[in-house]
């Protein structure tokens, strides 16, 4: 050992430092996979990757040719096999065919809306009132009112909230050739379909 030349002092990294660096890298790599384990935390049953029927309370699928104008129904999405979960307000959506003056007569998607029924104020369930002079979403709790065309709150406490807390989350629809209606898989973000109970940016 004594005959061997001592490590050059001009070297970039000493042997000891190199070993330390390796140990640090090893530690980081050992624990790196656990970062992705954070995905354990959010509940995946709230997500849905497949399109789902617009299933009306009577069990039938909504059809563009038969659903009345200026009318609404409650729809469960994402629907599960658990009746307790299906009752949850966060899975409750209001399926609206707009009134005539807002283009409800058209036989395409533009005549339909599907908004989260969870009021953006304090999470009561609002609903659509088709009566003449109302034709708007109303929350029974603190009187927030929603525009059926955009989902934007225009009166009550929800309307006072800053964006994105004043626009209802909305699901995208599509119509099959037979006229049956389907819900497209959503993008749960404020810039996409919105976050239930929180809101959405109006784009």
């Amino acid at each position, binding site marked *: 050992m004594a005959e061997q030349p001592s490590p050059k002092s001009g070297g970039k990294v000493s042997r000891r430092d190199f070993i330390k660096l390796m140990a640090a890298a090893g530690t980081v790599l050992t624990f790196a996979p656990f970062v992705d384990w954070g995905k354990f*935390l959010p*509940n995946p049953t709230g997500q849905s990757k497949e399109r789902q029927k617009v299933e009306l309370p009577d069990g039938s699928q909504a059809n563009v040719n038969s659903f009345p104008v200026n009318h609404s129904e409650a729809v469960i999405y994402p629907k599960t096999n658990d009746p307790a979960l299906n009752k*949850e307000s966060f899975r409750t959506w209001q399926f609206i065919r707009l009134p005539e003056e807002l283009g409800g007569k058209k036989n395409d998607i533009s005549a339909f809306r599907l908004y989260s029924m969870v009021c953006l104020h304090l999470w009561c369930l609002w609903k659509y009132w088709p009566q003449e002079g109302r034709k708007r979403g109303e929350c029974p709790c603190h*009187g927030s009112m929603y525009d059926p065309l955009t989902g934007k709150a225009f009166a009550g406490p929800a309307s006072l909230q800053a964006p994105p807390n004043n626009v209802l989350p909305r699901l995208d629809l599509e119509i099959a050739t037979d006229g049956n209606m389907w819900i497209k898989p959503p993008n749960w*973000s404020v810039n996409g379909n919105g976050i239930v109970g*929180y809101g959405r940016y109006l784009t």
Partner: protein
Amino acid sequence: MGVTLHKENSLTRFLRWVYAGVERTIFMGLKFTFPSRFVSPLGFLGMLTFVLFIILGITGALLMLFYEPILDRAWNSVKTINDVIPYGFHLRNIHYHASNAMVMVALLHMYYQYFSGRYKIRNEILWVTGIILGVLTILEAFTGYDIIFSERAELAISIAASLTNSIPIMGPQMRDAFFGSGFHDFVLRFYAFHVFFLPIAMLGLMVVHFPRFLVFDVPMVMAITGAIMITGGVFPVDMGLKFDPSVPPGITVPEWYLTGLYAFLRSAYDKFTTGVAWPGLFIFILLIVPFIDRYKKFSWKDRPIVTAIGITSLAQIIVTTYWGFYIDPDRTKSLLERLVIDPVFLYLVMILLVPLSFGFTYMMIKLARNAEANAKIQPKKPSGKSSINLSEKSIYAIFIALLAFQVYLNIAAYYAVLAGMKNYSLFIVGIIMLVFAAMWHVYRHGKSMQKAPPPKPTVPPMPLKAKPPPLPKTGPTAGELTAGSKVLEDSITKEKALAPATKGTTSSSQSVQSVNKTESTGPTHSENKVVSDEKK
């Protein structure tokens, strides 16, 4: 008195052996003090907080046996606990009121440490962990009343979730990660936080937070427990209405420790600023305050700025707490009008409280200083400490009376339960706790009397203390009097013994003698006087 409880038997020997074995454990680092007389509880509020934590742990664990953290069953299961399960009402009420008491005692503990300046000089770690513990305590209490899933719980959950959502960038992901994706998840997860995550974090922090010297005052602990039960008996906590998203809820406000925050939220200003940034700032200031406080002294009187900041925070907390509760009773107005607090008004009041509190603090310190100066000028009055001297017989009599009262209360509590008067029985059990506190107090009083030296058979030496003998102004003070005079007498006898041998050889010894004589006149004179005083 032939009977004594001090008997060595196998049980006591076993207990002694266990106690010796504890030497090897962490507990021997802690010094427990059991006060032998009444001491102010302000000094051991931390210990009381811990006791409340233990009470909450026990009652909470028992409630877990019947509570179901499932969306559509949570409220019903609490209702079952409250109405059907024997003593479920008692445990739920103790759990609820102890949680309020814990938040209150923890707050008092914090402010006492703050104003007495004990949080600095190597106590910073205790302070910082204490603040984190305080925040966790409030979160623990908050998650607790959320999982009942009443209307008020739903309001609290929705506020918590929307505040988390409002955090920039990571907010929605954080809500999804911690709270889950719907009411079902919220209830289940708040439950998990309430019974495991938060308490385990608190226990971990307590290991760091505990100082080595602890006071465990049995009567005070029992009195606090009794007070909680009495409160539970007089103000039993209600169930609230089960949350139904299609039914308009009544107006609800959060628990009292959150109405301060609620007042800010009701100003309808940006959610992140009012609900996350302001409380965050408040907590941050609390965390760094021992590092800002550069005063060398501890008393609140000597740290005017720090005291003023403390008073300001207290004033703001009290005002916003009340404001959060207050809802305009005028029912003709719209709900929104009654609920929303004008932000300009609110913030103006908050700012106005600062100079007011500083002025108040300045006045208080002035007054305290004046009082101190006055106390120095005026001769000290004999302190009005009236010690209660109970004879041995009267102590026995009190004990027997208390025991009889206990028997009566036990019967009364049992009959109250049989008659279905749950809150009345809880009230009586609270009184039983208080009686136990009184018993313990009498017991330790008797014990300390036993230990104290027996009173002198002669006339008590009160006049001596009350009337110090008039001394020559140059003479030694009263304390040195007896000892000094004895030394002098010794030296005199020594001089006398030495005198024959050295007589005439030096003049120095003579001068010493004369000095001694002049000095000794004072003491001897006064001693005579004392004796004559005593004879009177």
